[in-house]
């Protein structure tokens, strides 16, 4: 186990290094932060720009800037935002919980809905219930996420003013963005559960369980679901990456103070330190989720646990 862990940690470090290196390099090809900061500032001379670049540390080579970033990041110092000078670590510390809360709640909601629905669709394969669930999930898949977000805001905060349309004013604010994300996620998850379940239900041990006279509920939720848990967990783990990607859009629409908004603004403002910090944290989160997925295999499957 410890060899496994060390291997995974080394892999994680490698992934984060490569990702931040690529992102830091790529973003530097797309524009000059000094020009961004002085846009509309009237008569700006080349000398003024050079001064600003020096102030931001951009007069050094890319390699020097990158190694400096890595060196400081190792001790938790991600530098200061080009825009205003707020410590990036503080911005990250504020944004990470917001993003994790949104991601986990939407994932949880989605599992809560899609597992029972997916099972029902599989059990009633080809019948009315199955058709119905599949059509609804297809519609769900076809929604652009931002459109769904806007529709939900229109319905639940303007037509029926039940929930705040954006921002963070306590738990009520979480409902709309999480609902949006959950609907989008559920559309795929239902189909996945259905497919995995269909495969499992055709297995011989299910036939055996049924012929033993076990209740259908027990057959489905104890025998079948447990056995198709591994592909489901794998998929949901992989989906986490997509989920984070989707959050960039959803956070923007709901003005959610999370990492997605932070990354989006950092890219459009060429705020290198904030972007580097956000990317580091996001890649760490995704690596950590993958690690958790591996650990979860052992929890649901005694064969792996006892190996």
């Amino acid at each position, binding site marked *: 186990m410890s060899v496994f862990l060390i291997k995974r940690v080394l892999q994680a470090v490698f992934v984060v290094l490569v990702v931040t290196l690529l992102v830091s390099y790529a973003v530097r090809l797309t524009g000059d932060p000094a020009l961004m900061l002085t846009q509309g*500032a009237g008569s700006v001379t080349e000398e003024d720009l050079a001064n600003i670049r020096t102030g931001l540390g951009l007069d050094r080579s890319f390699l020097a800037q990158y190694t400096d970033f890595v060196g400081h990041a190792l001790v938790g110092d991600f530098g200061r935002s080009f825009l*205003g000078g*707020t410590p990036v670590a503080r911005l990250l510390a504020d944004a990470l919980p917001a993003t994790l809360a949104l991601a986990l709640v939407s994932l949880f909601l989605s599992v809560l809905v899609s597992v029972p629905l997916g099972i029902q669709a599989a059990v009633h394969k080809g019948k009315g219930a199955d058709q119905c669930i599949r059509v609804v999930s297809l519609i769900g898949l076809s929604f652009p996420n931002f459109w769904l977000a806007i529709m939900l805001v229109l319905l639940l905060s303007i037509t029926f003013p039940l*929930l705040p*349309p954006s921002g963070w*004013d306590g738990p009520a604010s979480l409902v709309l963005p999480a609902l949006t994300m959950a609907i989008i996620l559920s559309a795929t998850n239902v189909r996945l559960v259905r497919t995995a379940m269909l495969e499992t239900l055709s297995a011989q041990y299910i036939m055996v369980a049924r012929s033993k006279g076990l209740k259908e509920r027990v057959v489905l939720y104890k025998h079948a679901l447990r056995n198709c848990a591994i592909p489901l967990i794998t998929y949901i783990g992989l989906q986490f990456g997509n989920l984070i990607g989707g959050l960039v859009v959803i956070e923007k629409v709901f003005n959610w103070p999370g990492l997605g908004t932070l990354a989006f603004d950092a890219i*459009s403002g060429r705020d290198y330190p904030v972007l580097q910090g956000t990317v580091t944290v996001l890649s760490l989160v995704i690596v950590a989720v993958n690690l958790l997925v591996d650990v979860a295999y052992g929890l649901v499957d005694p064969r792996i646990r006892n190996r």
Partner: protein
Amino acid sequence: MKLRTLLATTSLILASLGAPSAHAAGTLTVAVHQDPGNWDPIATFLVAWGSVGNQVFDGLLMRTPEMKLVPGLATKWEFLDKNTKLRFTLRPNVKFHNGEAFDAEAVKFTFDRLLGEEGKKGPQQANYNAIDKVVVVNPLTVDFILKNPDPVLLTKLAGYGAMIVPPKYIKEKGSQYFGMNPVGTGPFRFTEYKPKISLSFERNASYWGGAPKVDNLVYRFISEPATQAAELQAGRLDVANQIPLAMIETIKKDSKLAVVSLDGPTALALRYNTQRGIMKDVEVRKALTMAVDREAIIKSILLGQARPIASFQGSLSFGYDPALKPLPYDPAKAKAMLQKAGVKPGAQIQIDFRGPDSNFREVAQAVAGYLQAVGVTATLKPYETNVLLNDIIPNGKTGEMWQNSWGGWTFDYDNTAYAMYYTKQRWNPFDDNAKLNALLHIQRNSWDQNLRKSTLQEISRLVADLALEMPLYSLNTLYGVNKRAKNLALPADGRFRFVDASVD
């Protein structure tokens, strides 16, 4: 059974979370599109800073929403020694929010800081380079010693980098802390800053200009215009500074809300690349300008929220010439002019524009349609905004036409015209006109505002004669407002100051 329990529980939870809270009494809530991240006057040049700066800080002068310069922390000013010295008499008995006294030393400290090493790191210094130094004459009198004329200086002293800051506070706490916890002499006193989320103030009861009517002022940072509109509709905002055009009618229909539309500072044009292909011919450039129906574009795409322009400035700009009319829309004449200039039907040109600007994308498509009608085929090339502004334009890599958009808070054509038309300026990669240079130089170095006005108007006529650009329109400044907020005195440049504002 289970489902019913679940539903009941859910509705209970929702009920306990509560519907979105109504406005607290006496609090004015404003949405701005960006968090500048630092409230130090010398740290940024963002409009979002300006939306807040006037509530916390005062300048020596102030500018009213009607564009009039009036006394601020200085009660009067006069030019001395052949305009090389500018003397200010300061307002007595003014205190900063932390109790520190405002006096000549504070003015000197502010400008030493702006013009010295610290200001060098920020984008503000360049705007105040005409000031050599500030000399304290007595506690309530200061002299600004000037290196060279800057006819826009008085306006610049009414905002941004010239806002007066507290010397003792900054020396004790440092600039970093000051940037996150601003202290000024303005009508509102800073209470809390949550980066990227909100910024809160309480009223400064001892404000020298009279205490504000509202108890609290809250800014929320909301970058998506559609989200600002939703918040406004939900009754959670008093002022929204970005409203999508498509939402104007919906907001107007809501009995609790209103849309305020003002002549704005932002002008749009399609600049010609005068060194490329058919664009070298001034007659061709004029013909293309005449081929496009700007009135129709404003009416159908911008829903009337803009005005046609004949030069690259809005009507509030110093140097605007009401007598200068745009070239008329006359496709038949345009076609004839193109034929005469030897442009063959089917000639190809390219229009570069800012891809994320969805309104302008539609405008560019309409322009391409009009050009097609006179036999010129335009392809549209969207760029990521920063790539267009920071690479394609300054390095002269544009197509035949490129989107040019310009604003600014000084409302003086000097800044625009100089940056756009003086040889080798950043926004002027293609044109080099000695007469334009001379005129630009004259107006920039004169204190005579009448001479400047006529010179600037001459510049705008000359640019129109040379057809350096296809002037399109100046955009209105739009605000969405909750009618419970009164006396907002909304300005065209987004620099709010809610001293007289009240909420029901």
